[in-house]
């Protein structure tokens, strides 16, 4: 209903604009009410983020990160005003596509950024490509969008790939002396890819992956899965769950007595600030995650961002917030490189792809030729926050080891890596 009303307001606004232009320019410039050539003095950005539905909280984080950058740095870059319109994807791929359509066909945006969920991204990407509108993905990590389905219009600006952080995890676990692993992940693409990255590198070193458990999204009761894991006595458990599932998992991992007894390594979503925020320190302290972001990273770019974000929003920033904040930094740098000339789309895109951030809340970042970031991967640990953040959080993630300049292909040759299928529940890259 709200969307419907929102839509009619837009139509009304367009009509008014059309009438207004008709009055000023009687020669009928406003053909169709859409093709009003926008002067190069603005860049119309459509930000797709869920602000309703299950992923509403990450959606708000994304918008907050985006707004914070422009509030700090001014929204006019090299004479170009950043004109952002926000579209609610309602955590639903169909709505995300409808909104992308609206943004491109009715509102004439020149750049799409977002959405959040992998399935939303997969729905929007082909459409944006077809209409030759650049799509920036700071949070959507689906591997194939910058691998087997890479497109010149789709880039993971300030983003990441699902298995990018977990490829190092397999070798790390093996080097720790772990030889058998059990895995648990949500039954959908993001977790298949994340767990696959771990399974491939762990087994290539000689480790053995036992039972792989896939839990439906929205699992509240993890106890049966935990009993399975305990029965197997693995050396290490690798876990990738998201959102409320992460909260449930962490709570039960601790209350069923596995914490501190069974070594646990997780994908960063499990202990992202958005999940550990509501948990007690003893439920999460010491948990190791592999990540492209760590809010407790001891670096001035990260800490300036964390402190400013906390002051503005009264919580410590999640990776979603950091992604959109940094994406704004990226776009600003790109605009400066082309001196504000956004009319030449190819040039602007090439400039964005050539940006190399020497530092950002994530650390140094640049894009590879497929449009995926090359960046640090952190081994991080949940610790208590320092006193200055006590009002905003109980715990945060501190870096204990850094893998510098990690590519989405890890140490594999791209051609060789792309010859294997994308990780799924049937292909986990397990070496025989």
């Amino acid at each position, binding site marked *: 209903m709200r969307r419907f009303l929102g839509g009619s307001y837009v139509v009304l606004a367009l009509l008014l604009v059309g009438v207004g232009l008709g009055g000023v320019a009687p020669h009928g410039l406003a053909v169709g009410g859409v093709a009003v050539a926008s002067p190069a003095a603005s860049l119309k950005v459509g930000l797709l983020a869920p602000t309703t539905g299950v992923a509403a909280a990450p959606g708000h984080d994304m918008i907050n990160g985006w707004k914070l950058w422009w509030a700090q740095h001014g929204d006019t870059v090299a004479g170009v005003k950043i004109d952002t319109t926000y579209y609610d994807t309602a955590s639903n791929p169909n709505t995300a596509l409808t909104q992308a359509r609206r943004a491109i066909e009715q509102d004439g945006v020149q750049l799409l950024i977002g959405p959040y969920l992998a399935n939303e991204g997969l729905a929007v990407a082909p459409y944006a490509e077809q209409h030759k509108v650049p799509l920036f993905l700071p949070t959507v990590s689906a591997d194939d969008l910058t691998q087997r389905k890479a497109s010149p219009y789709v880039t993971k600006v300030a983003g990441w790939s699902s298995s990018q952080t977990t490829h190092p995890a397999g070798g790390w676990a093996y080097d720790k002396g772990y030889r058998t692993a059990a895995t648990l992940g949500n039954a959908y693409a993001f977790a298949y890819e994340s767990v696959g990255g771990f399974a491939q590198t762990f087994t290539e070193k000689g480790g053995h992956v036992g039972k792989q458990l896939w839990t439906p999204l929205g699992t509240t009761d993890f106890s*049966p899965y935990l009993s399975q894991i305990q029965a197997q006595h693995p050396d290490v458990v690798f876990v990738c769950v998201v959102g409320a599932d992460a909260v449930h998992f962490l709570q039960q991992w601790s*209350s069923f007595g596995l914490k501190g007894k069974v070594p646990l390594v997780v994908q960063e979503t499990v202990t992202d600030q958005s999940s550990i925020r*509501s948990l007690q320190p003893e439920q999460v302290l010491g948990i190791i995650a592999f990540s492209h972001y760590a809010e407790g990273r001891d670096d001035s770019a990260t800490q300036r961002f964390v402190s400013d974000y906390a002051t503005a929003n009264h919580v410590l920033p999640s990776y979603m917030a950091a992604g959109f904040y940094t994406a704004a930094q990226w776009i600003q740098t790109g605009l400066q490189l082309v001196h504000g000339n956004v009319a030449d789309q190819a040039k602007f895109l090439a400039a964005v792809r050539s940006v190399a951030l020497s530092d950002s809340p994530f650390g140094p970042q640049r894009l590879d030729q497929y449009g995926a970031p090359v960046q640090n991967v952190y081994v991080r640990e949940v610790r208590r926050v320092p006193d200055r953040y006590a009002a905003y959080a109980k715990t945060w993630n501190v870096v204990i080891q850094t893998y510098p300049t990690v590519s989405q292909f890890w140490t594999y040759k791209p051609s060789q890596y792309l010859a294997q299928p994308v990780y799924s529940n049937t292909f986990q890259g397990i070496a025989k």
Partner: protein
Amino acid sequence: MTFYAQNLLGGLAYGSLLFLIAAGFTLIFGLMRVVNIAQTSFFLVGVYTGLTLLRAHVAFWLAVPMAGATVTVIGLFIYRVFLHRYHADELIALLLTLGFALMLDDGALALWGGNPESVPAPGALAASLQLGTLVFPSYWLALIGISLLIAAALRAMERRTMLGAIIRAGVDDEEMARGLGIDVDRAFYIVFAIGAFLAGAGGLLGGPITGAYPGLDGDLLPLAFAVIIIGGIGSLEGAYVGSLVIGLVSTFGKALFPELSYFTIFVPVAAIMSLRPQGLLGRKR
């Protein structure tokens, strides 16, 4: 051994949680023939209200009835202003409650934000018990007892009180009950209020297991349906037995055949629907 003990207790605890939702659901449906889709949304509002009270340092056991009372007020408003006109028309009533479910959902999101929240178990029950090699959260064990107590209290109400007699009469033959001069409408109000209270209080009671997050109500709704189908529509005992069956089947199913997690609860549902459509303890209509 530990494996089976943990899943047995886990299944009972999860079933007990489901009963907190299914009890009100079956009471309301049994008497009023209203499929209250908003029942799990009442539960969700109960968790959030309870969480807000806990954060204001209200004691857990006091916050439980307060969350229940809050949801009762919402429920009675919905019933008094909208639902009571339509409960004779099952389809309209169903759509109406669906509409309120969506509104409560979005209302909760607007009021409390969308971050997944965890609900701390009350003081003494926050820790875990160690029984040999088995570690089990105390609160989950306590919930098995709490749910059993609530079931016993509801059964006593149904069997031994005047209200219970009226409810039973209304369930059996509403027209005849009205013909005998029984104020069935008043019983409707009371039953709807009890149903809402159970869901609201149940929300906070179940909170330490479910937490609170947008979409919780949608995750629980199919389970509540499954419970009712297995137990028999309108039967309290059926709801209790059905809850435990679903709890145990889903827990053991996930533990033994994790690749079938999506289907485990629907196997007993399909079996019951084909072999005994009125449910385990339901009566033929």
